[in-house]
């Protein structure tokens, strides 16, 4: 369970948000929504321990989240792409899986790649891909890196309807497997039950 108590965050002298409270149990999804600039991405950064809050605390199963817990349990997919332009799609997949210490079966890897990319040539350089295709590489990690908590910052941006449906399938399966998901998005998620947090 992730528990956030009285969380406040300030950047310089500007208070971004104050007294945020919520709990998410395994098998639940939290959608964080709100206008641009209200601190959705910052809230995720706080949860993953990239930045320290001004006040309040965040715990995962009762323990304060530190770098060790974050690296063991959290998979974070941010807004910006992390892939290397000079590497091919295939090389990028191999690189980031080794960074995340994932031993993958070639069959599972190919199946996951086909699920998201279909007939795309994996030997294409990363810079040759479209924005949506680049985004899919990030989301491919969701299928190949096994961590109990997914923190996703606007995962739908730049994706077509078909890809959005695939992402929703992944989210649904993760919830069924008792994973925890925190998503920021400007659009509603096409799933039955999920919690929402509106930042003002």
């Amino acid at each position: 369970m992730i528990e956030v108590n009285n969380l406040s965050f300030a950047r310089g002298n500007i208070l971004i948000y104050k007294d945020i409270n919520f709990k998410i149990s395994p098998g639940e999804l939290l959608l964080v929504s709100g206008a641009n600039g209200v601190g959705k991405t910052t809230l995720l950064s706080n949860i993953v321990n990239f930045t320290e809050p001004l006040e309040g605390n965040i715990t995962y199963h009762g323990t304060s989240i530190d770098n060790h817990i974050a690296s063991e349990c959290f998979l974070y997919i941010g807004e910006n792409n992390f892939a290397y332009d000079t590497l091919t799609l295939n090389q990028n997949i191999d690189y980031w899986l080794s960074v995340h210490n994932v031993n993958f079966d070639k069959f599972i890897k190919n199946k996951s790649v086909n699920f998201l990319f279909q007939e795309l040539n994996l030997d294409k350089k990363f810079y040759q891909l479209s924005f949506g295709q680049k985004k899919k590489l990030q989301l491919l990690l969701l299928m190949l890196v096994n961590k109990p908590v997914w923190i996703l910052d606007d995962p739908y941006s730049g994706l077509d309807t078909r890809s959005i449906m695939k992402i929703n399938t992944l989210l649904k399966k993760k919830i069924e497997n008792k994973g925890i998901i925190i998503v920021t998005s400007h659009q509603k998620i096409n799933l039955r039950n999920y919690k929402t947090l509106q930042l003002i």
Partner: protein
Amino acid sequence: MIKNFLKLIANEFKLMLKGSVFSFVLFCLLIIACSIFSLSLRSESMGMNAPLSFLYIMIFFISLFKVEKIYSLDFDEAKLQQYILSPFSLEIIVFVKNMMIYLNLIIFFVIFSPLILIILNIDLSYLIQINILLSLSLLSIIFIASMTASITISKNNKLSLTSILTLPLFVPILIFSMAITDVIDFNTNKMYLFFVAYFLLNLAFSPLLTSFALKKLSV
């Protein structure tokens, strides 16, 4: 874990090879600079001191450029976030990247060194000594430059002049490198030892400080 670490090293090596074009350009510029230096002082009898000092200063700047370039590309916010969440600590990733930058530069130097020595009118019999001493000093230069780069590329650093704080750390390397010209004919063992010791000292704190700066200032 070890298997994936080796895979990570192999992948970093691939990345390093992709970035070799920039190193090649830098070394071509070095050769042009050495040629100009040599031609402009052709009427002077300089011995080995001046050309070697010039070479060291140029190598120092090449290393700074290379490290800065790699760090600005490889540690942008999105990549850094993934590295922080990696089961491998950021210090290890910094260490691997530094070693790859080192390998990249030293391979180019070894290839280009005979030509550089000829251009600078240095006796080729010193080739091996110069290569060994430069290999050892370059290790420390890269690790110190990584600290400088981690501060200068940071987006949250309001005072980019902070990176100047690391510059005094280069001074012992440059002083000892210049001193090579005096002792190269004699017993150079002490020089080797100094560079090894200085590298070990850097190895102890440089990855820690670099990753600390990256975490605190760039995410």
